[in-house]
């Protein structure tokens, strides 16, 4: 079979088409990452002494998980390359093994990503779901976050009620301590009267946010919704960038799986050209991760 080539660039048409597609992808990811970096750099300072961007520990971003994913993707790129070279050397069996390993490594990447996402879902670190009220917010920010604050109080109350629902009042004097703490905090979110019959004002969203963050540090098993200034902005950036990249990885895996299935019955030279084009895409996805990883996990 002859491969048609572009006259001016002297490249096979499929390869040229892939490069042109990748050029559009470069623009797409540049726009995406640039937007995230600009949002981060220009994030409003929530109040005196408060950081405008959440720290990695606050939003449970683990650099070592990202590092594992980097190793997985780099190794998968190497496997695609070795598979292609094996096909060129007419070693179909060897090529299939390398391609199979690529699929496994790509799937492992998505597995690690899924594990990370599951943690974020469990902790409620999702766009639009994070409470941003803490003590020390500037009055402008507090006014702007009024709706968010009220919704945050409701979410925390709901979680605290769920935690303390099965515990009887007489059992509260005995451990576990975290349930005692949760019950005490729930009482502080409700208006009531103290032992001297004086009116007790419920905690403001900012005060509650501080209390919740303190309790989460003391009793991580409570999994209370944390209060993170600009947390929703961070969550949007995190999920959009890593999510779109993960979709690209998934698409690459589908293409490589199809080629793997083809490799069971097709001739090597024909497959080599296709694998080279698919490999270009896979390497590009790998290259994007090399840029994305430091932006999300290190900076």
């Amino acid at each position, binding site marked *: 079979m002859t491969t048609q080539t572009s006259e001016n660039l*002297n*490249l096979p048409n499929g390869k*040229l088409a892939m*490069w042109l597609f990748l050029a559009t992808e470069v623009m797409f990811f540049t726009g995406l990452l*640039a937007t995230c970096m600009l949002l981060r750099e220009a994030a409003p300072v929530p109040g005196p002494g408060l950081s405008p961007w959440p720290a990695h520990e606050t939003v449970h971003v683990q650099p070592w998980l990202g590092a594992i994913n980097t190793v997985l993707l780099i190794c998968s*790129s190497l496997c695609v*390359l*070795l598979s292609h*070279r094996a096909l060129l050397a007419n070693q179909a069996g060897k090529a299939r093994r390398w391609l199979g390993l690529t699929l496994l490594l790509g799937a492992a990447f998505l597995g690690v990503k899924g594990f990370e996402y599951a943690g974020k879902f469990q902790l409620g670190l999702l766009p639009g779901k994070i409470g941003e009220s803490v003590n020390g917010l500037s009055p402008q920010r507090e006014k702007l976050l009024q709706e968010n604050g009220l919704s945050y109080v409701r979410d925390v109350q709901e979680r605290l009620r769920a935690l303390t629902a099965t515990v009887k009042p007489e059992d509260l004097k005995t451990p576990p301590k975290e349930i005692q703490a949760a019950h005490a905090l729930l009482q502080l979110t409700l208006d009531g009267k103290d032992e001297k019959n004086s009116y007790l004002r419920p905690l403001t969203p900012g005060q509650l946010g501080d209390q919740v963050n303190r309790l989460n540090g003391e009793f991580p098993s409570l999994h209370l919704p944390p209060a993170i200034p600009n947390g929703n902005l961070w969550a949007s950036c995190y999920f959009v960038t890593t999510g779109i990249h993960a979709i690209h990885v998934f698409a690459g895996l589908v293409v490589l799986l199809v080629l793997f299935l083809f490799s069971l019955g097709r001739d090597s030279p024909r497959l080599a050209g296709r694998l080279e084009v698919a490999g270009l895409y896979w390497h590009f996805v790998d290259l994007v991760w090399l840029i994305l990883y430091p932006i999300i996990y290190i900076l």
Partner: protein
Amino acid sequence: MDEGKPDNQFTLFATAGILILGTLMLPLTATMSPSPARLGIISGVIFLQVILAGANFMHLRHERRSLWAVILPTFILGGVLLFALMPDTILEWAK
């Protein structure tokens, strides 16, 4: 030269380079507080890793120079995009 000659040794060397650079980035940046120097180191490491990956995995080391006519304008436009994407709202926030 259109297609790179199989050069597994160099490819393995490049792969190891990317992995070592990525691994070094973790302790190096963990011990440094946020500063322009830290950002410079991270950017330098990213640049080296991307060059190694692009040149070896994507065969740019061996490709015809005419292919650069497709790739280079994209990167130039990408750079322009960085500045074009600064919407007024974001600039307003920073004030």
